[in-house]
């Protein structure tokens, strides 16, 4: 058998080139099949990775409804995984298990013991290098060539993971077609800001009180609008719906809207009123009006104008001609005040301008200015600037009184011709005055509102510096101020009701000792730590006698004094220092308030007195600007509570 096969091999000689090609083709075919099998095996083995990731990612996107940029990371991860999978698969495809792989596979399947592999290997060698044994080996393999079957030698293999991958793939397909119902929650109105500004309840209440007070009275439309905005801001702060930045932004906007009339313009307006007043005072008839304007009392000025109109209109006792003449001149002069003032300013301005031009021309001609001239030039420039400012202010003030001026001028023109018409003009002037009054009142309201805004701003600023500790202290203080028992302060004892310790101050601390502000009458140490509570002082009232339902059994010190009050209703009278009035002394009221909270009518009165004095001191600039806040804040905290 073996001999026959060997002999057959020798007979196959001569056909070798074609036959070896056949062997090569079959070996290549077998190798390609093996590589594809490897590719599929590797691809299927690793496919669950990207498919699983895709399934999870798709689920996440569908359930979390993320179609925005946040799903970019998912895509990136998926792409990387896909690239890795493709890389691994490509590597499996490109990895060649040697050139002889196909031959070896055929040998294995057909049990040829390496004949094909050897023959292909020997066939690679040049003919000259081949030995007779090599040729014989090639012929031996060539003989079996036609019987070789790559498809049988390397059958297609179904990877073990195929079912799992198929299920995963179709699951992913199904998932991609699945529509997840989106339940969108209705947008909640103004959710709380994540870093909302938190103010102490006490402060919030204070500003709520202010805004309520401001809203009570009727105002001009613009002031009303500003107050509404302020109220809304306070409500938002109370509801913790706005951040600190947002509050400051809105405060800025409000302040910008309110800031229309500057102090200088106000002064200019007052000066304009004074100018008109001096002219009007020259006539007996319009003197009262002039005096009212001189006092900036626009309400009275309106009344006086109406009276004047009444006088002019009066038929029974008409004004005599000289009076009318004087009134006419006064009215004319008053109506022309703005114009005159502007003319004065302009004349002076032109004068200064010519002076400046002269000096400039000298400079142009390369002639050096003397020291005196240089000084003069600077002085002129300063004056010019001042005049320009005055002109602007006068124009602004003139605009405010333009209506009045027009009516006064018309009244003056018609005064001599037709009294009725002139009176009508004067009445219209009164209306203008009313508007001016309203405008002024509106300015005052604006100023008041601005002050509140400043208070709020300063409070926020200080709160930002003090931090949470101050917030806690304010909370405790607020509770006590309402008469409640504040929780014991850190390191401090709750105040004793009848203690006899030293009178302690209520301090407003900025987080450290020594910066407290004493309530008048307190005599404790001002450097007590912030938040520490003062102890009760002396018992209020030291009057004699006692309150009772029965008739008194004793008698007062002076028998010759008042008769005994039979109803037994008498009050303790304290005499402290110069306070001779009845009732507790201010200091005692304050002490009592410090212990029981800032409540009660007596305390309200004392508070108002002290506050008024403090405000007046502040307004007179006797207090450094830096301390004004603390004073105001102090009074704000000790304000009477309900």
């Amino acid at each position, binding site marked *: 058998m*073996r*001999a026959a*096969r*060997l*002999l057959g*091999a*020798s007979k196959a*000689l*001569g056909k070798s080139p074609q036959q070896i090609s056949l062997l090569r083709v079959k070996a290549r075919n077998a190798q390609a099949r093996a590589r594809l099998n490897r590719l599929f095996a590797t691809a299927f083995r690793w496919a669950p990775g990207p498919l699983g990731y895709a399934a999870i990612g798709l689920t996440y996107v569908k359930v979390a409804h993320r179609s925005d940029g946040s799903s970019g990371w998912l895509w990136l991860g998926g792409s990387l995984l896909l690239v890795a999978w493709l890389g691994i698969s490509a590597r499996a495809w490109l990895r060649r*298990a*040697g*050139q*002889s*792989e196909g031959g*070896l596979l055929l*040998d294995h399947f057909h049990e*040829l*013991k*390496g*004949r094909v*592999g*050897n023959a292909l*290997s*020997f066939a690679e060698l040049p003919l000259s290098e081949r*030995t*007779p*044994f*090599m*040729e*014989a*080996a090639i*012929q*031996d393999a060539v003989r079996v060539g036609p019987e070789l079957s790559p498809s049988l030698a390397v059958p297609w293999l179904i990877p073990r993971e195929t079912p799992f991958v198929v299920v995963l793939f179709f699951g992913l397909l199904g998932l991609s077609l699945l529509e997840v119902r989106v339940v969108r929650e209705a947008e909640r109105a103004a959710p709380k800001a994540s870093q909302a500004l938190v103010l102490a309840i006490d402060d919030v209440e204070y500003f709520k009180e202010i805004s309520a007070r401001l809203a009570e009275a009727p105002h001009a439309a613009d002031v009303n609008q500003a107050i509404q905005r302020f109220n809304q801001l306070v409500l938002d702060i109370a509801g913790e719906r706005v951040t600190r930045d947002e509050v400051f932004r809105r405060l800025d906007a409000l302040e910008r809207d309110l800031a229309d009339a500057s102090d200088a313009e106000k002064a200019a307006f007052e000066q304009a009123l004074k100018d008109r007043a001096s002219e009007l005072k020259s006539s007996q008839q319009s003197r009262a009006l002039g005096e009212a304007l001189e006092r900036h009392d626009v309400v009275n000025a309106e009344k006086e104008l109406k009276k004047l109109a009444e006088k002019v209109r009066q038929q029974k006792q008409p004004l005599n001609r000289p009076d009318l003449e004087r009134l006419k001149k006064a009215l004319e002069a008053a109506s022309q005040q703005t114009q005159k003032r502007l003319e004065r300013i302009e004349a002076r301005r032109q004068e200064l301008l010519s002076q400046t031009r002269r000096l400039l021309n000298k400079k142009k001609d390369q002639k050096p200015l003397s020291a005196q001239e240089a000084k003069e030039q600077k002085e002129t420039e300063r004056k010019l600037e001042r005049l320009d400012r005055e002109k602007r202010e006068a124009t602004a003030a003139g605009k405010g009184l333009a209506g009045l001026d027009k009516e006064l001028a018309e009244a003056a023109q018609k005064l001599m011709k037709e009294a009725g018409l002139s009176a009508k003009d004067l009445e219209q002037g009164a209306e203008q005055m009313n508007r001016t009054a309203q405008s002024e009142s509106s300015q005052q309201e604006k100023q008041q509102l601005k002050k509140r805004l400043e208070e709020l701003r300063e409070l926020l600023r200080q709160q930002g510096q003090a931090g949470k500790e101050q917030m806690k202290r304010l909370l405790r203080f607020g509770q006590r101020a309402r008469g409640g028992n504040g929780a014991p302060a850190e390191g401090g004892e709750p105040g004793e009701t009848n203690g006899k310790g030293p009178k302690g101050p209520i301090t407003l601390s900025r987080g450290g000792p020594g910066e407290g502000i004493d309530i008048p009458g307190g005599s404790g140490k001002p450097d007590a730590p912030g938040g520490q509570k003062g102890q009760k002082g002396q018992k209020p009232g030291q009057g004699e006698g006692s309150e009772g339902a029965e008739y008194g059994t004793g008698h007062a010190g002076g028998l010759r004094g008042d008769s005994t009050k039979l109803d037994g209703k008498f009050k303790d009278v304290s005499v402290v220092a110069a306070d001779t009035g009845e009732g507790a002394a201010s200091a005692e009221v304050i002490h009592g308030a410090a212990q029981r909270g800032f409540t009660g009518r007596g305390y309200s009165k004392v508070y108002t007195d002290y506050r008024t004095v403090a405000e007046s001191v502040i307004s007179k600039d006797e207090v450094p600007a830096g301390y004004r806040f603390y004073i105001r804040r102090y009074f704000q905290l000790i304000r009477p509570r309900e």
Partner: protein
Amino acid sequence: MKDESIMSENQSVTQQVLDFQTKVATLRQEIGRVIVGQKEVVDGVIACLLAGSHALLEGVPGLGKTMLVRTLAQAVRLDFSRIQFTPDLMPADIIGTTVIDESANAGKVFEFRKGPIFSHIVLADEVNRATPKTQSALLEAMQEHRVTVGRTTYTIEEPYLVMATQNPLEMEGTYPLPEAQLDRFFYKLAVTFPSREELHSIVDRTTTLHEAEVKAVLEREEILGMQKLVRQVAVARHVQDYAVRLLQATHVQTGKAFDKVQRFVRTGASPRGLQAMLLGAKIQALFDGRFAPGIEDIRSVAPLALRHRILLNFEGEAEGVTTDAVIEQILSQLPESA
């Protein structure tokens, strides 16, 4: 013209391979007259003879190791000598010694009397019982096929085959062969216990009047010719590469050592192991009537060629791991093509 010359060469090669196969079959047949079974050992011994190298036979006593070698020696027309290795055996006992030859004409002359080592086939029975000194006397003869005594070097006539046997059980009073000497054995053949049928045959042959007669079927020249033919067999590059990778895989130092190699091997096989594998594979291919060995041939001879060339470490010895187990793991995990 060229085709014709190739054809004639091819026919010649084919004829030579056919002759080779016939001779081997005849030899096997003759040996089979005495030796029952043990096909692998018989083929291994024949392979060693055809490779011009030596064999180490290991097996418990009574399995026919000595009988096999003796039968082989009878089946081929070659000189045979048997040396029973004992602890008191001296090198001169196997190499030979110089004696004074007294002759009437020449007087007293020193003459070297060749020892048993100078035979074509030497049976070194229980080789591990001799002292290392005596064992090492075999070294030069086995490797160089020559013996140096004093100033004279004596060449041993080809073919030269040392067949050593050793008993793996009785280790007391033995001197394990040094690594250098082990390396010189082409194959280490494990003589296994006969099967039931084989035992029946053994009993039938040895307990009756039947006496097997072994005839010499191969002449010395024929054996030398067969040895030459073996070396003419070509080995494809990928087969040789597989053998090289297989050898490398027995070393711990190579890049990807297999688990058992990593744990239990102290030293891997030497390049002689590679030579043994390739020659053995060629002989296998010729046995099978093929013109070139395949990877399967390498795989089949690898345990025979490598098992005595791999040295286990202490852990391997302690765990009772055999070198066959290590080789088996390498063969199962080493890819055929790289």
